[in-house]
């Protein structure tokens, strides 16, 4: 489980990969791209990998991560639901 305080960072990571679907990065590279500490990013990346959002390439000594595009992409419009609230 990702702790509550880590949710914003998980969102940042997911958004970064989603907007740049052919990005291939090390944890250090992601740390530079996001401007966050590598130590904070590592558990999040592992979590995203477990969730099947990211894919790990290469060996475990120098792992690389890339976005695993979902098989089905669907745009959902919540506007109406939001208005009714």
């Amino acid at each position, binding site marked *: 489980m990702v702790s509550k305080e880590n949710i914003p960072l998980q969102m940042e990571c997911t958004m970064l990969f989603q907007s*740049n*679907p*052919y990005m*291939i990065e090390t944890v250090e*590279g992601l740390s530079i*791209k996001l401007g966050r500490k590598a130590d904070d990013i590592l558990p999040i990346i592992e979590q995203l990998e477990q969730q099947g959002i990211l894919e790990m390439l290469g060996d475990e000594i120098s792992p*690389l991560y890339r976005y695993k595009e979902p098989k089905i992409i669907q745009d959902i419009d919540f506007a109406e639901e939001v208005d009714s609230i």
Partner: protein
Amino acid sequence: MQSATGINGLDIILGGGLPTGSAIIVEGAPGTGKTTLGIQYLYNGIQQYNENGIFITFEEFPDQIYTDMKRFGWDLQALERNNQLRVISLSPETLIQQMRETDGLFETLIKEIDCRRIVIDSISLLKFLNRDSEIKGREILYTLRNILRKFKLTSLLIQEQSDLNAEHVPFEHFIFDGLIRLSLKEHLQLFRQRTMEVLKMRGSSILEGEHIYRITEEGIYVVLASRTVADIQDSESELRLKTGIQSLDDILGGGLDRGNIYMLDTNSKANYRNIITSILAERIKAGDQLLTILSSIQSIEELAALLKLHQVDLNKVIEEKKMYFIEHYNRPLPESWRNSVFHVNDLDNEKYNHFLKYELYPKIHSDLKNEKNWFIYYDLNAIINERGTDYVLRHFATETASARSKGMTVLVLCNFKEVGNNVASFLERSCNGVLKTWVDGSYQYLQITKASNGDISKPYLLENMQDFPYIRLI
């Protein structure tokens, strides 16, 4: 085989496109449009030539590139969805590591989309991978080049501008197949002008020089330096007059245009006689009627000797009434040549003009009616010396206009430097074409600085040869 860029002007500069399978450096300062050029090359490759491509960026976020390129109407993400393009963001270390690996990520990506073109932005960062060892840095670039070649990818490798004034030529300029330089130059003091120059392209004949380009709403648009608005001209070969110098004919697009006025601008050191003689000899051989204005430094005897070297017997030509001379100097002549020479040394400007109008022109006019072609060699230096600049300014435009209207071809010899800027500019305006020859150091050059088709040539080296036609342009 060439891989066309589809970029206006650039393919003409490159003689069709980038050599297929070559690795070319695109060098430029920030703001010169290197990334745009790279993406445009890939986008056109997909849309126009059915060649898929990969863009590798080390520093930029792909989503920034998607957004930036939308201003040109290029939807890169749509191409990615169709598996025609990949905009890949990774670090330089990862790229090299994955390129080296058997069945690594690089190889997989190439196969995945059947990639033919690749752009790497930028190789400047690769050099920093081994900051401590120049040899290691070289090794990385060698490896990169070899892998790109192995996959037969036509590659553009973007590089931050190297110091133009540096004596040290960057190593990568040697190992890669070509170099395109984009520059920002000061223009009209207030503006900056973007220019493109192809400095190296292995195995290709390129259009040399700096060409201006603009970043338009359709991307990079190159306007060729040697193309100005062209006059309408008939390019049929019989309307081209051969000069007798094959390399000069090639530069002129087949030869001189019949019925046009050409100026040969030469300084005193340059040897122009072989050029003139070759053209005159060729006209004689073609059966044209010739009229020549002799100068103080060229008598008929000297001309006869030169023509003989070009396989023309002047005695025979004169006998057949094919060549006439205007002589401003009182020089002795053999009896057999007298009827071909008009002596004007005792005529003042007014009488000379009268002679041209009422004696010479009617004669030429009657010959033109007999469908004879006239070629006139006009030594303007002699007219300036004998009749003054004012006379030339007053009558030259009228004379050339009259010649042109009668379909006569005129070759004018002049030294622009000697006559001054204003007169030179006036003379240049009155001519359809200008050939300039000059000596710099121990070498003579020739350049077409004005042509009826709007082309301006690069300066050619003029080499003297032992054998006919004695000169060659290189």
